[in-house]
């Protein structure tokens, strides 16, 4: 079996209208890694995720999953690959007309053969893992934004995805919540075997759980660093990256 990198991004260009935001992005993500994308606001981090999960085609370049081309392949092939992903958008992006448990259940109904009772049992388990029991039948508008984020997490992980994409999961959480996110990410990697791609600028997240990170620079419009965050903080050749990670001041 092909045991190359799980994800490979090759020659990717990100454009907004006609302006180039990022170009020449090349990196690989290995199976079981927690891979962080960092960079300043507007550097194209979220857009990169959108290209990787199949929401918008990139201006140039390609994303490969186990060697299989994601965008230049057929639509069926892309949909098959997308079924292996779980995506958490900033703020949760829950379906506003559905209760929290129904938000989690949608994917289970659609992509599994579980019977209706089992769908609810699995959905309830996922809500329990995120500490949301007791809120199953609340609508997203009836809970605070912290719980919406957690419910989004439960929905993203409903199908035990092989690859979990997280766009600033801790953006709306307090520091304790942010640490809990780190913990949750670790279970999914360690216990359920997920590979995690996370957009985050949170130092603690980066240093404590990320195996590898890339830095998207908004001035040179490309990635200026790649490696373990703690290593980059002290040894990156780019002074901006060292400063970004809080190192290199001495």
């Amino acid at each position, binding site marked *: 079996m092909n045991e190359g990198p799980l994800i490979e991004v090759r020659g990717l260009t990100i454009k907004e209208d006609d302006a180039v935001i990022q170009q020449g992005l090349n990196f690989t993500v290995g199976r079981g890694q927690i891979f962080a994308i960092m960079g300043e606001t507007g550097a194209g981090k979220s857009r990169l995720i959108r290209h990787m999960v199949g929401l918008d085609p990139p201006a140039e370049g390609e994303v490969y999953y186990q060697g299989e081309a994601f965008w230049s392949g057929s639509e069926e092939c892309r949909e098959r690959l997308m079924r292996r992903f779980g995506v958490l958008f900033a703020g949760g992006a829950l379906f506003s007309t559905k209760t929290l448990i129904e938000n989690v259940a949608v994917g289970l109904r659609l992509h599994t053969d579980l019977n209706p009772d089992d769908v609810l049992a*699995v959905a*309830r388990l996922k809500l329990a893992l995120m500490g*949301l029991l*007791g809120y199953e*039948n609340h609508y997203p508008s009836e809970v605070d934004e912290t719980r919406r984020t957690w419910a989004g997490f439960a929905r993203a992980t409903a199908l035990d995805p092989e690859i979990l994409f997280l766009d600033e999961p801790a953006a709306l959480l307090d520091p304790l919540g942010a640490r809990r996110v780190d913990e949750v990410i670790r279970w999914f990697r360690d216990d359920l075997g997920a590979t995690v791609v996370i957009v985050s600028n949170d130092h603690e997240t980066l240093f404590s759980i990320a195996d590898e990170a890339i830095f998207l620079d908004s001035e040179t419009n490309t990635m200026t660093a790649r490696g373990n965050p703690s290593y980059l903080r002290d040894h990156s050749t780019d002074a901006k990256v060292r400063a970004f990670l809080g190192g290199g001041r001495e």
Partner: protein
Amino acid sequence: MGAEADQRLTVSRDGDAVVVQLGGDWDLRRGLPPTIPLAKAINADPRPSRLRVQNVSLGRWDSSLVTVLAQIEQTGATHGLDLDLKEAPAGVLRLLEIAREGGRRSPGALSVLPAASPEIRAPLPWVVGRWVIEGTLTLGDKVPPLTEAVGRFVIESARTTGDKIDFLGSTAVALWRMLVGRTWRLGLGMTAALQEAGVGTLPVLAILAFSGGAVLSLLANQQLGKLGAPLLAPQLVAIVILRELGALATGVALAFRVGSGIAAELATMAAGKEVDALRAMNISPFDFLVAPRVLALVLMGPLLVIYANALGLLGGLFVGVSTNEIPVAIHLESLSSALTLKHAIAGLMKGAAFGLAVGMAGCYYGLRSGKTPGSVGQAVQTGVVAAVLGVVLADAVLTLFFKWVQL
């Protein structure tokens, strides 16, 4: 990777203990094994006092195993059995513990997995009234000169025609998939959509139809009275209401009340990345958002036309009887001679077509709006204008068509 072994859950009895043997590869996508044998074993005489989980060459596992173990644990607890989970994989136990903790932290939820029985709640109302008002009040900062506005409109229309045809096609496909039952399991919220399109429109429509019928009757009586043919007035009023006024009032009421609501709702969803979330889950926004709303409007349109017709005729009758010197019985006779199925059908078909026009306009401008909360207002504005225009155009086309087929 070796061949996958099917998940196994076997229940046996060992003295005073019920033994649950778990084995094979567990995959959520293939479903959960039934737990009925467990319930049977527990309820068998003599009653057991212990419940033990045994690991028999358990392979890969995922949330399905955690869910089943949580159910086993729950069952054991409710029957007061001593539980022995030592042989379950450490990872499963850890997740189970976390889920238990999550259950403890939440108010009102004592157990991890209470029996699956979702309470039924009233659907959330489509709260959009405030947006509508805000949207219609901000009528652009600058008003461009007329020529420029017309030019822009033409260019913009030409540019987006392909997109609109595409939208229409995708909606047709989604409606088909819905009608043949392929998308129902998504939970489409048809009830809420029907309620919004139907019940929500009744008050506005009542006023429109009743006063429309009254005014029409007043004019008809005056003008035909002058010509010396006042007996024709009730007939004329009835025909106009059945063929045109009832349907048009319905179309306009739907455009203002429901078209605006749909545009605002979908634009808010697009701004909140809900639409992206759908697409990321391989769910088509057309299946999930557009088809149920459009279908609800097409179904409700004719029903609302019947309602509007009744109220319009009532308004006409009220004014006719109180201003005309003709006896009520003769008035009613003249009126009922015009109440034919042919006229009614023409009106009903218009009602369905107007529902379609309003649904398409609302959904199109809702989904095609910008990605910021500020674009919601604009989506509503353009959506309502397009919905009314759509209704009026459909009216003209259908009227010509009915003349052609002599309906």
